[in-house]
């Protein structure tokens, strides 16, 4: 993990944590080290070798069967000049943004509504959870027909308000909007449940006090809810970044039928080919395991970079993250 120091920064902005045993030596903290050890032991046992192997692989040429051939830095050199890879970064970021921002806003609004004294909240909560478990096969069939050019619901709506049809799954932007919509649909309820759990940490007395001071719902949200939810919001932003930038299932299921050459091609003009799809295409379609590994490390760097940016943005106004 030579890359670890690069990500040292984000958590470093957390000067918090009461020093419970501040002045003793390392050994006196043995309970604490023991308590955090399972994750690291599991990584050492099952994660380190795979990671090391893929790093090794990325400096070689290998088709998965024959002998490996040392390639030095050439895979990475090619990666930097590979316009298809850069294109997939662009696709991923656009799809991520189209999905993430509506998703987080909708999830926050939903959570606040469900947290207020509303009836039937069990029913709503259950309903909002369903997209997250609806079978991928069904989702692919349904969204395929929602965005179908001639018979689709999306185009029926457009025509109803007097606009032209869009060939959703055949144009670069249409594909991205369709994937973003699918992801928003599938993950809004999930994030709403996270926010709902987070809202439980805010004491009801604070809201009561705000109400007595004459604060309206909007003011209350921005003055109380949002600041106290910052640790949870940071979690959601980082997780959405890490998982969203590695999105794979959604474009794959939505576009596999329209793909002409490969199930990982990301649709016409590769407009829906995300970074991880490109990794699969290089590794398993082209049997280029060495280059695939280099692509994977490229993905890792992009994800780390974006996570650091997000961490900075969310935590800046408040030291206590």
């Amino acid at each position, binding site marked *: *993990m030579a*890359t*670890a120091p690069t990500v040292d920064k*984000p*958590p470093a902005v957390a000067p918090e944590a*009461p020093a*419970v*045993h*501040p002045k003793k030596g390392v050994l006196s*903290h043995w309970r*604490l080290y023991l308590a955090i050890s399972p994750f690291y032991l*599991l990584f050492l*046992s*099952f*994660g380190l070798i*795979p*990671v090391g192997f893929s790093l090794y692989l990325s400096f070689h040429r290998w088709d998965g069967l024959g002998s490996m051939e040392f390639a030095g830095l050439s895979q990475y050199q090619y990666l930097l000049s590979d316009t298809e890879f850069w294109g997939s970064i662009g696709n991923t970021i656009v799809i991520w943004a189209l999905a993430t921002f509506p998703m987080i806003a909708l999830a926050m609004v*939903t959570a606040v*509504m469900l*947290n*207020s*004294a*509303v009836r039937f909240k069990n029913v*709503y*909560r*259950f*309903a*909002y959870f369903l997209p*997250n*478990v*609806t*079978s991928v*096969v*069904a*989702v692919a*069939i349904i969204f395929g027909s929602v965005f179908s050019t001639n*018979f689709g619901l999306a185009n029926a709506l457009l025509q109803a308000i007097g606009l032209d049809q869009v060939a959703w799954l055949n144009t670069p932007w249409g594909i991205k909007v369709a994937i973003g919509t699918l992801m928003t*649909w599938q993950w809004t309820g*999930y994030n709403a*449940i996270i926010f*709902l*759990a987070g809202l*439980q*940490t*805010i*004491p*009801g*007395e604070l*809201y*009561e006090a705000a*109400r007595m001071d004459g604060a309206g719902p909007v003011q209350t949200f921005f003055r109380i809810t949002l600041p*106290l939810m910052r640790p949870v919001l940071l*979690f959601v932003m*980082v*997780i959405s970044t890490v998982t969203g930038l590695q999105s794979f299932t959604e474009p794959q299921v939505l576009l596999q039928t329209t793909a002409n050459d490969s199930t990982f091609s990301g649709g016409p003009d590769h407009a829906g080919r995300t970074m991880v799809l490109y990794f699969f295409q290089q590794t398993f379609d082209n049997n280029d395991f060495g280059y695939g590994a280099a692509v994977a490390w490229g*993905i890792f760097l992009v*994800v*780390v970079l974006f*996570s650091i940016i997000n961490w900075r943005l969310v935590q800046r106004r408040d030291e206590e*993250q």
Partner: protein
Amino acid sequence: MATIQGVKPSRRPGKPAKPIKGTRGRGIALHAVLVIGLLLSTFPFYWAVMMSTHSSTEIFSYPPKLLPGSHFLENVRSLFDNIDFFGSMVNSLIVAVSVTVLVLFFDSLAAFVFAKFEFPGRRTLFALMMAIFMVPAQLSAIPQFVIMARIGWIGTMTALVVPAAANAFGIFWMRQYMKGAIHDELLDASKLDGAGFLRQYWHVALPVVRPGLAFLGIFTFMGQWNDYAWPLIALTNPDNVTLQVALSQLNGVHGTTDYGMVMTGALLALIPLLIVFAVGARQIIADLGKGAIR
């Protein structure tokens, strides 16, 4: 956060306001918005349920079949004929329950340490964990298989449970949650009472983070229940697999895929998941008043 101190411990979790003037109109508007969300969320699920009552050819015919058909029992019968549905469901339950229990314990314990204690190397270790979390998961499958084969776990459920017993996602989540939920005054007070580390964790931390644990428990169970790629690789005996792997065996039986049967299988496989959610989600908005000092 000092403002909360000294407030009487009685608390109605997350109920910000009693009915006030104008709430009736606002209540109707609120429900209108929530119902639109409900329809958008449930419609594809409803459609999927309808698919399970039709034959494969009917599913792909136009216009879409949005009303119940008559093929459900037939789909169920061919489902049970083709895979060992209940046997693989038991396997899935064993894996998902074991992993969930282990993850809840290990992750919340580690998170408690990261959220509330200072010790040498804390930042570095946390950063390292986050970095590991960001490594694309697809990298690991093949070498991991080789390791598991060496220690003889391939083909057993152990290969699924042990590597999943602690994860960065849950530690990060519980750490963020504990930062907001566990107030330092609570820990200081319990320390003055002579509580050691484990008692602080068990009696002070866990009771106030129940909503956080509920979220982690539900979605850990769900992740394991739905996991497909790794079980497919690791469970080499086709007669002893988890439910999702068994369901995948339905693709392409008899040459083509019987989508009616596939949809029926996917739907029946959801039932335990829905029960876990219904039970777990009640913990998210539970009465934390008793015991928890606020």
